[in-house]
């Protein structure tokens, strides 16, 4: 073959072929890389997967970030469109009322939905996903109302609050979850990552201050933005209308030299709230912290109201988006709340009575019990890591919730009558502890094993 011919034969190979777009979609979008591994980890029956028909299953995901999902099917290149979820997916980023928008860079909600889709079979026609912006109280309320109206079968919620509840399953947020979960809806709630980041204290007043030393925050990485939230159990357990409280606390942050760094001095009031006033028993502030000013002190002042240390309790939460770093010997948090609790770190609405709260063995995964002494999380999974084909790997309570959500979807996809009662029963039997209890023990995840299709069938017959 002469050179010219050889060249031509090669160029023939380079001719554009006419593959359809839909073929490319499956091949091109990033997706869960290790679904088989995760399914194996939870002993998910292959029969359960093979016979699943997820087309009618409605899945709601509540989160404050779905980056990537907003431009689903957007044309990126001539040959490439983004496709993370089934075509029927809908994203609700805004509501009729003013609320916080989605966090632009946050993609956990999309990853959660991807995980559910991949584990439940990656079928073109289902499940049907509704992704709800739940960033902030107003958005959360709108999302909860919308998903109830839609009639979601399974809800997976990654959002948690350090306030807006009494940490005993009551309060305005929990009431919203109650309404959704009290029916047949399966609400799977991430336990959040608040372990060691909270302090719970009885409100014992002395000279308008808490009768105890000011809590301290130590800083290990400069320029760390911290969010400090103070909340106390002055929320009405009801829902119809929230009239507020006049129990008024303020929070001030000082550095190691006693210089005030930041403060939150909202005035808590009942009834209509004006400027600088709020009905909610919460104070919140952000501040950039530095090592040379560490430790910082958090002074809590009692501005108004009668507090009874036997019944009134506050929770101080100190959190940051900054990831822990490796200090040469161990993983170290950028900031540390001195004497921060691991126990009783369950946030709102992970403390909800009707939701299935999922924790993980991640070091910051929140731990129970709740303020009223219930065991939470309901389930602690050490969870297989979810790895995606764009080489992002995620573990922790949010992904554990997604993986458990996928199991719920699979049950529902096999048995359309499968509901919340069946789910709780299945979960009880999935927990293989000697007494069959669901213990929020950090090492008990090995006791979890999914039920087979036949077992679920029998369970529903019962």
């Amino acid at each position: 073959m002469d050179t010219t011919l050889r060249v031509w034969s090669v160029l023939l190979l380079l001719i554009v072929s006419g593959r359809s777009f839909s073929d490319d979609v499956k091949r091109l979008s990033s997706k869960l890389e290790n679904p088989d591994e995760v399914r194996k980890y939870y002993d998910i029956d292959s029969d359960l997967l093979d016979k699943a028909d997820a087309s009618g299953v409605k899945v709601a995901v509540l989160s404050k970030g779905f980056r990537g999902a907003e431009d689903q099917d957007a044309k990126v290149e001539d040959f490439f469109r983004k496709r993370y979820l089934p075509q029927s997916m809908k994203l609700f980023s805004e509501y009729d009322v003013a609320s916080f928008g989605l966090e632009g860079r946050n993609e956990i909600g999309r990853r959660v939905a991807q995980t559910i889709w991949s584990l439940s079979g990656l079928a073109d026609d289902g499940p049907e996903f509704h992704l709800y912006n739940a960033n902030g109280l107003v958005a959360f309320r709108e999302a909860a109302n919308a998903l109830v109206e839609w009639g979601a079968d399974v809800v997976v919620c990654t959002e948690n609050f350090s306030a807006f509840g009494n940490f005993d399953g009551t309060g305005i947020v929990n009431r919203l979850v109650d309404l959704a979960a009290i029916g047949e809806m399966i609400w799977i709630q991430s336990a959040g990552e608040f372990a060691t980041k909270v302090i719970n204290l009885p409100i014992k007043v002395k000279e308008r201050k808490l009768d105890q030393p000011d809590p301290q925050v130590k800083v290990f990485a400069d320029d760390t933005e911290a969010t400090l939230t103070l909340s106390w159990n002055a929320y009405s357990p009801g829902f119809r209308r929230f009239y507020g409280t006049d129990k008024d606390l303020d929070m001030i942050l000082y550095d190691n030299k006693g210089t005030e760094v930041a403060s939150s001095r909202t005035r808590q009031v009942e009834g209509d709230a004006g400027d600088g006033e709020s009905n909610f028993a919460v104070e919140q502030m952000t501040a950039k912290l530095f090592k040379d000013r560490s430790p910082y002190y958090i002074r809590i002042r009692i501005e108004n109201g009668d507090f009874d240390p036997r019944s009134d309790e506050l929770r101080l939460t100190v959190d940051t988006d900054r990831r822990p770093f490796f200090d040469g010997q161990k993983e170290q948090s950028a900031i540390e709340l001195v004497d921060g609790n691991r126990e009783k770190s369950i946030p709102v609405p992970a403390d909800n009575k009707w939701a299935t709260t999922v924790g993980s063995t991640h070091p910051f995964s929140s731990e129970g019990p709740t303020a009223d002494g219930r065991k939470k999380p309901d389930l602690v999974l050490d969870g297989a890591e979810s790895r995606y084909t764009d080489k992002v790997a995620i573990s922790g309570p949010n992904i554990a919730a997604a993986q458990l959500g996928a199991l719920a979807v699979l049950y529902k996809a096999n048995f359309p009558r499968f509901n919340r009662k069946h789910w709780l029963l299945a979960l009880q039997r999935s927990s293989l502890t000697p007494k069959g209890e669901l213990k929020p023990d950090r090492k008990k995840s090995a006791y979890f094993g999914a039920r087979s299709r036949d077992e679920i069938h029998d369970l529903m017959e019962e």
Partner: protein
Amino acid sequence: MKPFLLLVAVLTTNLLATVVKDSDLAMKVTDIATTRKFLGMDSYSKFYGNLSSVKVAVLDKGFKGIYPAREDGRRFLPKSAEVIDAYAKALEDVRLDEEDPHGTHMAHLIWAMTGYQEEGPKFRLYNANGPENFLLAVEDLLKWKPDVVVFSQNWETFGNFDGTGFIDQAVKEVTDEGIIWLNAAGNDGGHIYNGPVKLVKTEKSDYFVQFDSNSNNTWYLRFKNLVDENQVTITLSWNSFDPGYEATGTDKDLDLSLFVQQSGQASKRLASSKLIQTKEKTGEENETIHARERISVTLPADKENYYLLAVNAKGEGSAALFDPKKDRMRITIRGNKGSFYDEDKKKNVDAIDFVDSTDTGEIPVPADGSGLAIGDLTANSAKGPTVDGRGKPDIIMQKNNVTFSDRQGFFGTSYANAYLGGVVALLRAAEPRTMQEDLLKFRIRYPLQYLAEQVQAQGWTISDVPVIDPVLASYIQEKWGIDYIVMTGPGGRTAVASSESVDKLSAWPKEVMDNLKDYFLYARAKRIATTKRERVPKEVEVIVKAGYYKPTTKRDLQKVLVKAGGNVAVPRTKTVNYGSQFVGIDLYRGTYGLYQPQLTLYYTENKYVEPEYDYKWVDVPGEPEWIPPVKKTETRYVYAQVAGEDRVEKEFRYQKKKDAEAPWDKWGGFPGDYVEIIQLPEFSFIGKGAVVDGSANSPRIWSTPSFEKLQRVVRAREIR
């Protein structure tokens, strides 16, 4: 100056120096004291007072935290620092990227190295976001006349990769003024193809480039993308840039196309770049005066199939303009996903696997120019030579990573460059007459060339040079196409050196020996290995680094070891004379951002001591794994076997015993059965400089240019 006056002067300058308080700083460098010491700067705070007279220009794309400034008033630089964001002459309004902290890191590192002094150096931070801003920045800094310019960006085009082109010309104007220009070598190692523009006519009268690749099909270049949603930029550039400052265009017109291979089907075109190259701008759409094409695409992962790159000339007229003997092209592939941990391979792998990369000639613009190109020891550090055969990078900095007090870490040649920037700034404070040429004393040496020159200087013919290690000789011969290897150390203490060779080498001039004394030898080699069972050729890459160091205490030795590898322990073996000379040989494969030796052999006074730690050879898929050397023994050989083949290992052990008696007899007969034998005493001289290209294929001698050494160089020059 009288001693008294000198003392007063020193005290005065010290009094002038003010260390900025931590509470004024946005962040600090966590291990800066260690780094200063490593680079010989820790005892020279007496020069801090002079820093106010030192001017440092940093050119970059973004200075986040400085521009715009932080709201809380905390700083990254002295108060005197200025930012030049916009230029009066700018034709396009390309401003600094306010989210990019890269330039901030560069300037802050330099300041940290010079002791966080309020007095200086004086910083001017220039917007060099794009070639136009770069040229305007250069124009401005020529008026300002800084002592040193630190530029840690680069382009994969806008020059001919031989130090010419409008960008390089601008740099030359700076260095011609006696200003020191430090340029990061870039991190495109393994991501570049270089070759001639050899166009071949097709049946349809198209002209396609035939590549110099190992593939069966040379009409395209292959690469794999292993990560989904990788935003990949592929740049084709050829040497048709005006060598001068005028940036006149070219009508030599090439186009670039990207295809994806599909199993059992025809390949599919994904994208192409078909700009029209012109000598002058006419305002037509899709035209450019620059000899470059660029494709930016988001690519899905495909482990099975290759992405293919094809280059063609735009018509017969354009094809006729190219001469394969003179015209050369370069393709650079960059992705936004760096490397990732591969669960199957149990190691970090690059998201882009450019299988047809040439692995040489990777220096970008303007690192190929008249400034100094600063590289590091990672595999991603761009390798030379330049197109015109100059060895680059000029200097290798061992230190290339930083952790700031906000606990964010970064690494790469940019950071290596900034560290050297700090050394040079203090040097200018101490020795204002420091010149770029002084730093060239620490230029990487390419020993093939150097030793060939020395051998000739001795009046020897090649055949006179004693061959000491025939095994290594055959290995080097195969790889580098050279005939002889000479290995020895001063005094002939090493067991490998024959008395004959020692006699020969003891006759080498003292200057030669001294010159090599403080250096490391850094060699890189590839070899085709064959498994015993399958006889399948496999390629293994090994990087060999030999070092020379004189520790005086055990603690000192420990520092050396830790410095070299980061994860090694001091040998606990007993009768080691730590006070004597010591040589370390590291075989390592550079993983992204990590300096990770897999094997270290240590020699002391006539003794070989095996360090007691686990060797971790980061293996290449399908390539042999390394077996640690036998326990304490005089035989200094490292063997390799093929992963998973137990039988081979057993045979190997048996064979090893025999090898100890007369290794080369055995090995000479079966060069393919096992892989490397590395045997390097303190100094390794590789003779007959048949290959002298300063490239990755050529061993390099390098040394980190510390402040102390540089100061000696400057003073010695002045005395002369």
